[in-house]
């Protein structure tokens, strides 16, 4: 997707976070020489084009009390993956679901799903429920609970762009 220099300036200006003032888009505009209306229009356009998924917040699950974080994976015949994934994402406790390549012999699993919860016993019960609901009983499965989080930092996509801000945040890019 072609991004204009103006798009890039705008993205860079908001990358470090929205100012916590009553008119944040006015402040963002002042940093890069745009009016408040131009900033709002520009951001709406980036959303409409799908470059921005949304503005919003990402929480650190651990600080919120979500201590049990289970990456659950199955080895699913390729032709069954789409159906199984559709059933998984319909479950309220499934937060992410992907198909990824197998890397044999170390890694035979191709369907990934994340379940975050406050306590491990409940997450384990949810994994069983997910396995049944998605019709994955009897297929090879592994559950990888997180033991420690070493780093949760923001991905930056505007490094080297003009008017680059300092990125201090973190993100929960799909895949955590």
């Amino acid at each position, binding site marked *: 997707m072609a991004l204009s220099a103006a798009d890039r300036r705008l993205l860079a200006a908001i990358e470090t976070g929205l100012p916590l003032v009553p008119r944040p888009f*006015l402040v963002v505009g002042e940093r890069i020489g745009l009016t408040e209306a131009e900033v709002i229009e520009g951001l709406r356009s980036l959303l409409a084009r799908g470059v921005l*998924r949304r503005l919003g917040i*990402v929480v650190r699950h651990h600080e919120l009390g979500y201590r049990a974080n289970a990456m659950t994976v199955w080895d699913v015949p390729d032709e069954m993956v789409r159906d199984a994934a*559709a059933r998984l994402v319909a479950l309220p406790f499934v937060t992410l679901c992907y*198909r990824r390549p197998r890397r044999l012999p170390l890694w035979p699993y191709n369907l990934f799903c994340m379940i975050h919860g406050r306590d491990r016993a409940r997450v384990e019960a949810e994994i069983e429920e997910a396995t049944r609901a998605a019709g994955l009983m009897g297929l090879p499965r592994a559950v990888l609970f997180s033991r420690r989080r070493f780093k949760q930092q923001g*991905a930056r996509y505007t490094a080297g762009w003009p008017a680059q801000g300092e990125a201090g945040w973190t*993100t929960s*890019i799909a895949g955590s």
Partner: protein
Amino acid sequence: MDDVDRRLVNALQGGFPIAERPYAEVAKMLGLAEAEVIERLAALREAGVLSRFGPMYDAERLGGAVTLCAMAVPEERFEAVAAIVNGFPEVAHNYARAHALNMWFVLAVERPEQIAATIARIEVATGLEVLNLPKLDEYFLELKLTA
């Protein structure tokens, strides 16, 4: 974190208004004052509960790339390897997990060709093989937690 904070976090995980007075709109939705919303967000950011407040990008549409990587790290080297891996600015997050493949991290780069180059550098720096597990299909997008 109290009930009001929880409602605020839940509301904002779904999105933030793009309007002249966005905090006032959020405040109205939750029955709060604009100033209170701003103060609470500042406190949550300070406390580290909010890891991010702002734009969520679609990395691919921006020309970048993201992938999930896994390594089998010998226990006695775990701390040292974690320090090396976390020292790469391309590593967005990194988790220890209970499995033979015990280190799982996400790479986020500006251009797709940097994925292979970064993995090669991490392999050289650690002396360990990195499995690259890019997403082939995504079935769900939002990471939305009930606070």
